[in-house]
């Protein structure tokens, strides 16, 4: 999405056109360099913000570690270990070095290295968001095609209402209502958590992704149980994703339908649905994939609130648990991590779009 506005041609100050052939490769290289530069600046921005937030805490971080009955020497020693006696620029330099080398410090509550905690919690979020995006895409694209086919008629209006409702949904509330209906009243799905206690120690951990781990071990009862836990939160997140995907697919397809080539196809006698499914959808694949990537990044973020409702032991719950324990270093490290993933997915989205549509590369 971010590529569209900035790549609009700005009439006459464009640089003189370099000779063909060599210029093309150079332009592509320049585009790649500028994308990577933006990524680096963004990462720096994230680091600055998290560093600044860590320094303006209303409480004394040293006191949180040593307790208020420590002697002055202990206090000073910990202060030195936390590098709080050094000037700010040096502190920031050390902070950046630590973060880039994967040393996120220790959690104030558990005492574990935060990096270890995060690695343990992340796969749950990944599994949830991935199943959700798959559901959202599998339902959202056909619905978007349908909306484009019947543009301005009843199916389109229904699709519009449905996807706007998806945009507007407070996911934490939807989760509570979903549990109330499908877990408490109908009993169709398992409740909060990822796996029943009975199965928790019978499945060997390989990938930390329970659907895969249980299938690898051939524990089909456990697989069914994990699926039953996963399906409700994933469907609800998927509903939100579906809203975005439907809406954008529809508008990209309508744009394709206004192009001359669809007129040719129509004159050749192709049916409207063949034009949409076989030609327009393929031509719109770049922007649709880019939107899917952006939606995925958004889901990783939305998972934070979903996880607290479903007691889902992922990164979101790690952040909120740390929050309530006032474990700010853990919150900030997880924030930085989510921010970095968010940024990487954004870049992936731009690269995909550029790979599929050479026109979007002409900066």
């Amino acid at each position, binding site marked *: 999405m971010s590529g569209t506005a900035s790549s*609009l041609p700005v009439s006459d100050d464009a640089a003189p056109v370099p000779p063909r052939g060599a210029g093309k490769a150079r332009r592509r290289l320049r585009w790649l360099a500028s994308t990577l530069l933006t990524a680096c600046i963004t990462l720096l921005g994230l680091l600055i913000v998290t560093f600044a937030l860590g320094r303006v805490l209303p409480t004394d971080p040293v006191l949180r570690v040593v307790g208020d009955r420590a002697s002055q020497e202990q206090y000073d020693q910990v202060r030195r270990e936390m590098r709080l006696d050094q000037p700010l620029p040096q502190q920031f330099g050390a902070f950046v070095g630590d973060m880039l080398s994967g040393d996120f410090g220790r959690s104030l509550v558990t005492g574990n290295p935060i990096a270890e905690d995060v690695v343990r919690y992340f796969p749950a979020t990944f599994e949830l968001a991935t199943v959700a995006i798959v559901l959202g895409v599998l339902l959202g694209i056909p619905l978007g095609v349908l909306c484009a086919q019947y543009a301005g008629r009843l199916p389109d209006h229904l699709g519009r209402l449905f996807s706007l409702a998806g945009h*507007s949904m*407070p996911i*934490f509330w939807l989760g509570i209502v979903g549990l109330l209906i499908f877990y408490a009243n109908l009993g169709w799905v398992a409740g909060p958590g990822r796996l029943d206690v009975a199965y928790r120690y019978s499945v060997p951990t390989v990938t930390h992704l329970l659907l895969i781990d249980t299938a690898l071990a051939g524990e089909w009862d456990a697989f069914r149980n994990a699926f039953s836990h996963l399906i409700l939160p994933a469907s609800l997140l998927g509903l939100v994703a579906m809203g975005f995907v439907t809406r954008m697919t529809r508008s990209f397809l309508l744009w394709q339908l206004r192009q001359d080539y669809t007129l040719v196809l129509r004159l050749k006698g192709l049916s409207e649905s063949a034009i949409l499914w076989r030609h327009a959808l393929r031509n719109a694949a770049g922007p649709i994939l880019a939107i899917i990537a952006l939606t995925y990044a958004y889901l990783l973020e939305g998972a934070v*609130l979903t996880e607290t409702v479903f007691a889902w032991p992922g990164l979101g719950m790690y952040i909120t648990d740390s929050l309530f324990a006032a474990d700010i270093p853990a919150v*900030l490290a997880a924030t930085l991590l989510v921010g970095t993933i968010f940024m990487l997915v954004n870049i992936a989205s731009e690269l995909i779009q550029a790979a599929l549509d050479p026109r979007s590369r002409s900066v």
Partner: protein
Amino acid sequence: MSIASSCSRWLSTDTPATRIQARLGATYRLLRRLLRHPIGVAGLILVGLMVLAALLAPWLPLADPVAQSLGERLLPPSAQHWLGTDTLGRDLLSRVVYGARPTLAIVAMVLVASVPAGLLIGAAAGLWGGWLDAVLMRLSDVFMAFPRLILAIAVAATLSSGLWTAVIAIALTGWPPYARVARAEVAALRRAEFIQAARALGVSRTRLLLRHALPLCLPSALVRAALDAPGIVLIVSGLGFLGLGLPPPAPEWGAMVAEGRAIVFEAWWVSTLPGLMILTLSLGFNFLGDALRDVVDPEK
């Protein structure tokens, strides 16, 4: 009747005599097109009702939203308490209506902070181009790449002064879309004759930016703002849900959903009804924005 029709004729004339008449006329035509759009009308009604309720809450015949009555805890909806009562016996209808106030106030504050900033930055980048354009757009890329909700959570959690700092965090990540749209629009019109004419007349750079370029971006900024508002509503209520919002006795929708969460299987109304308000408000804004997009720019 005749006054109304002559008003309408004065507003929709093709040859306005004054600047005010032209501006009011443009607004009038926009409004008329919006009122013919069913989704737009639905959005106007939903948002309008919420705004009215928020403004008039103290004068409506409602119970005190913070008055506890431990003898009347968790009463289901009834004639006396239309939406029932919560764990402390407070009237839920009253709390739900009062809950519109902080949410709408924050939406307004974020928009007031981020829309003008985004427009100014975008219009300046589009009008002047060059290195300023490159720097400003790079900056907007950076702020756009920040995960909004997570940043708001981190800021609200560390600075612990609740929603005020969240406003800053949400606004800080909110301006880039406005800047991008404004930049594209202004850049496309940079060589337009009326801009050239203003330049030739010796209009100062600031005046060119503020009086000639900026007004062109207002319609699309209006659309963006309406589509931006639901996201802000959801972030604010999400913060409230996590306990990072207003301090406890104050009625806030997200916090109310969280309060009722533990007892949702016994008393469904405590948690579900405030959530329904969040959904209604953000749906209203989305309807409004979606319809405005059709109305402002029928091409797309």
